[in-house]
């Protein structure tokens, strides 16, 4: 915005000088020239400030509607309180961030698959998550080793994309949040760089909370046979 102000006043000063019939010589001899120079300096400052503002302003990117099937699958043996906590997490994430798909894998089982999921081959069913394969893949191992959140702001640039076949094919951004050292939460977003830094910190805190909750209930459950 200051660019327009600065540019317009620049032209106005030159125009003014032209129509008052003064020779276009840029010297500081007459007070008119001095006033002109000062005004020109101010106009240039405004233009440069406008350029700095442009560099700060984030580019607006349009979200991409994820292609897939809506699903809401939660592991059935979980107690009521854990299920409501998971539903709260999904409700918050989908309302506040650009997250459109959420998959939680814990203790080698897929606990949650909510949101839009990729269609599985020819049927109209959501793509089942192969927890064992995910846990052996490089993405999970990397996140487990570092213990920190991994944010892939533009998924098309990452080769690890092939390890997440259950996400819609046009998912734009992915956050991998480790849940302690026993699980991982995969969040798929519909905008490139759609998760802001404050979103990332909130997600890491929510991940810790989920890990604490799940750890408490998973340890007190009898071991379940894997299908």
């Amino acid at each position: 915005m200051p660019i327009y102000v600065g540019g317009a006043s620049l032209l106005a000063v030159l125009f003014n000088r032209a129509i008052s019939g003064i020779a276009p010589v840029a010297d500081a001899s007459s007070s008119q020239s001095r006033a002109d120079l000062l005004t020109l300096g101010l106009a240039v400052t405004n233009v440069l400030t406008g350029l700095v503002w442009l560099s700060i302003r984030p580019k607006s990117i349009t979200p991409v509607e994820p292609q897939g099937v809506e699903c809401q699958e939660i592991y059935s043996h979980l107690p009521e309180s854990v299920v409501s906590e998971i539903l709260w997490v999904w409700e918050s994430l989908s309302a506040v961030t650009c997250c459109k798909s959420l998959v939680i894998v814990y203790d080698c089982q897929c606990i949650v698959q909510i949101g839009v999921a990729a269609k599985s081959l020819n049927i109209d069913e959501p793509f089942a998550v192969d927890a064992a394969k995910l846990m052996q893949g490089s993405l999970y191992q990397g996140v487990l080793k570092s213990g920190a959140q991994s944010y892939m702001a533009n998924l098309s640039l990452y080769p690890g994309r092939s390890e997440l076949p259950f996400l819609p094919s046009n998912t734009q951004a992915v956050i991998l949040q480790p849940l302690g050292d026993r699980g991982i939460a995969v969040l798929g977003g519909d905008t490139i760089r759609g998760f802001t830094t404050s979103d990332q910190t909130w997600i890491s805190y929510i991940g810790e909370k989920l890990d604490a909750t799940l750890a408490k209930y998973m340890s007190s459950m009898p071991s379940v046979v894997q299908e």
Partner: protein
Amino acid sequence: MTILTTKTQLLNPLIQLKTPLPLKFRPKMASISARLDNSQQQMNLSVLRFTLGIPGLDESYLPRWIGYGFGSLLILNHLLGSDSVSAAQLRTEALGLSLAAFSITLPYLGKFLKGAAPLDQTTLPEGAEQIFVMSENVSVAQKEALAWATYVLLRNTNTTSVLILTQGELCIRGYWNLPDGVSKDNVLDWFKSNIEETGLSDLRDTLYFPQTADAEFWNILPQGTRSVLVQPVLLSPNPSMNYMGNIEGFFLLASSMRYAYNEKDRAWIRAVSNKLRSKN
């Protein structure tokens, strides 16, 4: 002509080119650490900004100083100028003065930009002590939920003090000014009586005071509070219902920064308040 000494090349990872032209923009990596104080994980972001390279100078205020400087030079020029002041000169000076005024207000407008970083950091309120109290008769699950909610709000937002009232139970954490006569046991009662006076328990909409305002409940907040957010805990998960069944309570968040809570922060605070809904 560039002056480059070999010593600076070896010692400085950031090579600074000194040129005789005073106004030369060059990109410089400035690190901004996010607002998590006393935390082990500090997130460092590198932002590419155009700066003059002078350490300790905040460039965002530069248009203001240039505006003052050039504006005063213009006035000086007008007063010391030749006897006959032509109309053209008057026009130029008018334009110059209005540009100077505009430049002076530019830094203020720049704060409202979408990508602008917060200019002032959180300062702790003076004379306040850090407390963490909770009502006695809450279930273990509720205790955990309250503790986590207050912890996350204090860590993740610009909050210095938080008060949660839900289902008649209080949880207070952060920096608060307690009057001298209140002992540790009476803290909860003191807060409860003050809150009843303010009538915040019947609040239905979110209240946000980004700057110091003259509200009645200001006396229980710590000194140095600049912005306040009150978020009611709504029972109904469906926001399109016009009448809410029961309001379960509210969250009161106070910060020592002005404009402390942006859109995203408020959305997350709403999400956290939904966590404390009772499951009916």
